């Protein structure tokens, strides 16, 4: 087999594994921009390289390495494609100089690839393709692997690569938030897998089934691109003027790129009118290599695929949360923070112990935290805890905003004990207040209260009562913000008060305070407040 045939065989195998994993890698893509095209970009880059290889007549390794480098540079698509082109360039330099494709050459190739990749960026970001190639190079140079033959060495590298990839969410926050591993790193690993299979004469490995943990729920909530069609084509002609064309195409959309020379220009534009973009091309010369992709469909299909892979509620969480909450808005808030079961209830409508037992049992977790969110519900929650065979901890939250402050800290992947500690800490730090309507004449904590007047409470104690809502709400807010707290959350009730004047006064008095107003929909309390 000639060098060229060998290179083609390895390249074909790498391309085949990429193609097989293309969709899965697209779904992982949240960095550097969540546009879901990393798998596609890497595949297109690899295809461009293979096209050049297929047409090549190179007779020696050095010429082949030069051709590969150039093909990767020209064919690079997207950020991952550019990084891969640099990795390939480094590797090709080392391979081009080598006499034999032995283990020592592979070691040098990975080292050169990693060094070349790192050279081309001012501030390398860990948890990306870069950290994966660096770890592959480290593993290749590990003295423990010194005696390995090429096939065995590559297997070892794949193991290390899998490990490095699994750690990318620990290194890069956007990955952790979206619950995914790095897409570019995953693509790089598939390329190495393909080469390894070809080298040891094994069949191309099957693409793994999409793991629900890899395609996280949050990855769905990524924005759509403003324009619909990603349009790419080449114009061939004479005396082509890139600048004039750029001016014309600029009107049609964004992400415009016009590169090339007077005889051939490559165009890339995101637009709603691909037809007009092509018409500008045909006016100047002949067009070729037209690719139009509907990005909205791509993004939408990706969202659908990700939603499909979200674990159904039958699966077990490490820790689940049951919350007792009044009002539709509050229910949504608690659900958005991950409450598995929300029981409608609160002041004057306490749920029964049986209701709470049922909710705990319906929660798909072996350990359950209960947020009663009302002092009268704490006791029933504690009774319910004793009646079930699950391990239950009751977090003694006495109001809805306090419960909200607690559930914000909830992380399903942590143990019940860790969650409990975080929630108790949140309860300790939060100050909560209510504004309600007095149901009778009374004197409370030294405050004179008239039936039908507004009554404001802070941490359970009356602070003001008056016919003027703004005055009462301000007094409560003042009290809550007194200890240097900076974030004020407001939950408006079923009877939504007019907050305009109150908010204006708050802003004047506390310009630095961060305000968050949410429709809670709870009865009896037109306004619930919490400060942290």
């Amino acid at each position, binding site marked *: 087999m000639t060098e060229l045939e060998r290179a083609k065989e390895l390249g074909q195998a790498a391309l085949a594994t990429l193609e097989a994993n293309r969709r899965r890698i697209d779904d992982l893509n949240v960095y*550097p*921009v969540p*546009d879901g095209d990393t798998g596609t970009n890497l595949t297109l880059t690899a295809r461009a390289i293979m096209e050049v290889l297929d047409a090549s007549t190179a007779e020696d390794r050095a010429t082949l390495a030069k051709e590969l*480098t150039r093909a990767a*540079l*020209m064919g*690079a*698509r*997207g*950020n991952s*494609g*550019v*990084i891969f*082109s*640099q990795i390939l*360039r480094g590797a090709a330099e080392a391979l081009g100089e080598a006499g034999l494709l032995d283990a020592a050459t592979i070691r040098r190739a990975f080292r050169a690839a990693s060094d070349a990749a790192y*050279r*081309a*960026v*001012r*501030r390398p*970001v860990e948890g990306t393709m870069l950290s994966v190639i660096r770890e592959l190079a480290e593993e290749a140079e590990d003295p423990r692997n010194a005696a390995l033959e090429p096939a065995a060495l590559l297997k070892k590298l794949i193991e290390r690569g899998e490990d490095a990839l699994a750690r990318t969410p620990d290194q890069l926050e956007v990955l952790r938030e979206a619950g995914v591993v790095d897409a570019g790193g995953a693509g790089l690993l598939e390329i190495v897998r393909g080469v390894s299979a070809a080298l040891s004469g094994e069949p191309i490995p099957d693409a793994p089934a999409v793991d629900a943990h890899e395609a996280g729920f949050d990855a769905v909530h990524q924005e759509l691109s403003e324009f619909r069609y990603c349009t790419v084509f080449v114009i061939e002609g004479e005396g082509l003027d890139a600048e004039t064309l750029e001016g014309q195409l600029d009107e049609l959309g964004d*992400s415009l*790129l016009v*590169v090339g020379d007077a005889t051939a220009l*490559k165009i*890339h534009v995101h637009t709603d009118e691909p037809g007009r973009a092509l018409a500008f091309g045909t006016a100047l010369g002949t067009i070729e290599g037209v690719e139009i992709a509907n990005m909205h469909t791509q993004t939408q299909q990706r969202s659908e695929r990700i939603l499909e892979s979200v674990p159904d509620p039958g699966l077990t969480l490490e820790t689940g949360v049951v919350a007792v909450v009044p009002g539709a808005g509050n229910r949504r808030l608690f659900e958005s923070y991950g409450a598995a079961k929300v029981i409608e209830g609160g002041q004057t409508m306490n749920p029964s112990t049986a209701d709470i037992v049922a909710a705990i049992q319906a929660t798909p977790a072996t350990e359950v935290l209960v947020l009663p969110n009302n002092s009268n519900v704490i006791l029933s929650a504690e009774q319910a805890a004793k009646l079930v065979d699950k391990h239950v901890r009751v977090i003694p939250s006495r109001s809805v905003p306090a419960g909200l402050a607690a559930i914000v800290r909830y992380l399903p992947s942590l143990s019940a004990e860790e969650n409990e500690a975080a929630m108790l800490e949140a309860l300790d730090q939060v100050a909560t207040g209510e504004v309600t309507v007095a149901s009778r004449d009374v004197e409370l904590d030294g405050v004179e209260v008239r039936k039908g007047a507004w009554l404001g409470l802070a941490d359970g104690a009356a602070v003001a009562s008056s016919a003027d809502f703004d005055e009462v709400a301000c007094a409560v807010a003042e009290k809550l913000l007194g200890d240097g707290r900076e974030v004020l959350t407001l939950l408006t009730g079923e009877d939504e008060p007019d907050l305009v004047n109150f*908010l*204006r006064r708050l*802003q004047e008095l506390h310009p630095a305070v961060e*305000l968050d107003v949410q429709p809670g929909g709870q009865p009896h309390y037109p306004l619930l407040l919490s400060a942290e």
Partner: protein
Amino acid sequence: MQQGHLTEQSELGAIRIAPDAIAQIVGHTAAECYGVVGMAGKGLTRLLTRDKLTQGIDVSSTDDGLRVDLHVVVEYGLNLAEVAATVRSRVAYELERLTGLRVAAVEVHIEDVRRSA
């Protein structure tokens, strides 16, 4: 209103963001973009803002939103068009995510190509 600040209106009042704050965001983002090995300041700015992260970055406000011009140096041997496209999309994405301001244009000027040792 302070001069030159970028303003976003909200129900509770205006939010003003200094161009330098925007330039800082752009600088941090650009430095992490693959292929970008430096920023190219021009003339006097280059002397005055040496080594600063915001070198080579111009921020201005237009009727359609923010306009950002970046003058970058790219590693030799990379596909310049693709590097520029990544810089453009990543800067626009991060700016909109972090400031909430509408980004009308991100112009990437590749001023130089450098071959690293």
